[in-house]
């Protein structure tokens, strides 16, 4: 097991470095100076600014320093627009918010989606099954940026039950709509995957053997069917995580929750390369780390995987 984890880590580190290099090269090859703007700034000022931020140094020295600062100080660099801000400040501000509703959306997707899928498979061709299938088909065409306005329209404008934006330190009324908007499509996917794999497991030979032995249905499901049926769900958690990180940008923009996505879009509109690069690298590292965790969990649960 340890060898497997080390092996996977050795794969993850080059990916991480590749991601940093890729974003850095993109930024480096951007036409024009990051400090050029509509206002007329003399070339001397731009040159001074570039020197201050170290942008006049050779490419390898720049990227070397950048990676070195991340590794040793966890420092993702400065903002090129706001002098008194660096990426770490923005992360410290926005990340707790993103993490809060992201966590609950993840919990919603996994628990409700998983339960719905399993129950639908156990009660195949009943109204429960049709409900689950209906939800998972419907959610395919309702990605977060479509669902969010619909939710606000219904629950804020028509019913007036929940606030349509803001965060207020994470009071529950403000968390519900972002969580539902972010989690629903993943919940539906998990329900679909869990249902399909449970149906497959239920028709397999070892379940027939367990039935033939006369084990009670409850025991068959809990002890024999559940674990293999949930394996495809676990391997879907990696892509789901990426999707949620990406989706959090929409949630932050639409609900003004003040999470990290809001800073990302703001920096994209301002062409604040420093912040964009910092957030991309941070979220990319998180994604790679999470995929690593999922792989390890998968190998740990599934005895068929050899490592």
């Amino acid at each position, binding site marked *: 097991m340890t060898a497997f984890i080390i092996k996977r880590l050795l794969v993850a580190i*080059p*990916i991480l470095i*590749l*991601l940093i290099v*890729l*974003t850095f090269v*993109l*930024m480096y*090859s*951007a*036409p024009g100076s990051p400090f050029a703007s509509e206002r007329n700034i003399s070339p001397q000022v731009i040159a001074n600014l570039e020197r201050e931020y170290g942008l006049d140094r050779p490419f390898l020295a720049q990227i070397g320093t950048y990676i070195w600062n991340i590794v040793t100080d966890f420092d993702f660099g400065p903002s090129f627009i706001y002098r008194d801000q660096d990426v770490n400040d923005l992360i410290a501000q926005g990340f707790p918010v993103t993490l809060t509703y992201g966590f609950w959306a993840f919990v919603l997707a996994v628990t409700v989606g998983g339960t719905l899928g399993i129950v639908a498979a156990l009660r195949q061709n009943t109204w429960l099954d049709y409900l689950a299938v209906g939800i998972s*088909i419907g959610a*395919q*065409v*309702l*990605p977060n*940026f*479509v669902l*969010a*306005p*619909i939710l*606000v*329209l219904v629950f804020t*404008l028509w019913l007036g039950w929940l606030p349509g934006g803001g965060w207020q330190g994470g009071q529950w009324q403000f968390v519900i709509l972002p969580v539902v908007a972010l989690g629903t499509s993943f919940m539906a996917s998990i329900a679909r995957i869990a249902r399909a794999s449970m149906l497959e497991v239920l028709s397999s030979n070892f379940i027939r053997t367990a039935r033939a032995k006369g084990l009670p249905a409850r025991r068959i499901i809990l002890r024999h069917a559940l674990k293999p049926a949930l394996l495809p769900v676990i391997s879907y958690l990696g892509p789901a995580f*990426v999707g949620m*990180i*990406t989706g959090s*940008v*929409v949630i932050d*923009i*639409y609900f003004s929750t003040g999470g990290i996505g809001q800073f*990302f*879009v703001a920096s*994209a*509109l301002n*062409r604040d*390369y420093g912040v*964009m*690069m910092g*957030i*991309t690298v941070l*979220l*990319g590292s998180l*994604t*790679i780390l999470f*995929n690593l965790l999922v792989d390890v969990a998968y190998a740990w649960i599934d005895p068929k995987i050899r490592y």
Partner: protein
Amino acid sequence: MRSATLTDTSYLADAPQGRSLWADARRRFFANRAAMAGLIALTLVAAFAIIGPLVAPWDHEEIDWAVLGQVETLGRPSLETGHWFGTDTLGRDLFARTAQGTQISLMVGLVGALIAVFVGTLYGAVAGYFGGRVDGAMMRTVDVLMSIPYMFVLILLLVVFGRSVLMLFVGIGLISWLDMARIARGQTLALKGKEFVEAAVATGVHPFRIILRHIVPNLLGVVIVYATLLVPSMIIYESFISFLGLGVQEPLTSWGALINEGSAEMRNGTIWQLAFPLGFFVVGLFGFFFVGDGLRDALDPKDR
């Protein structure tokens, strides 16, 4: 007279008709009601995108100064003013804008899927056919690219090199082929051991010719099904970026940009600004999903 008897093929009518894979698939597809509904919906959406701008009384850039400032009342959908879907907050005709946005969204979806078909199929077929180290290196590359949060890189790309439809195509094309490559590789591995490939190898056919003439045609079924299902996800990517205001630029628009505008304005009582683009988005995506599922059922030989 003799030549006439030679070309007389009437005796063939008595011979039993062979059923090809494709004819069978076509029959199954047309018997599938959900798939047919999807196909009809898609045809209507496409017709709207193509014919809409031609029949609209207003241009998508034109501002109707008469309704400006009173969009909630005068900009309602109505037949008299010629604003069949109403206007947006700037007084631009929503019918023309939705038609134009539908064009962009469909185009992004189709281009993304086409890139996936060409690049992904060839890449996967080459990796699967050669196997060994080549396969290992090529598929590791795909794994690495897939574990990067591409949406952020894509936005980075758009910001750095300027937002344009072309850049959007390039960015979406960069990621769309990855899944296709995996699927094509898996299928190629299964095909590689078949007798007809062995025969081609034995007669000394060049490897790339084997891939193009013998492997790729046999991948077509899977590729078509997957490409159809890829179109809606490409449309979702583009809409996502446009929803954030980072995609296509004014005066061009797309489903995502229109939904964004509509959702920002819905508090002001102009619900049609959200309803029409959202309606086309949902109907269009449903259409693609149902057609894709129908094609899968039709082309999947497991159900014979």
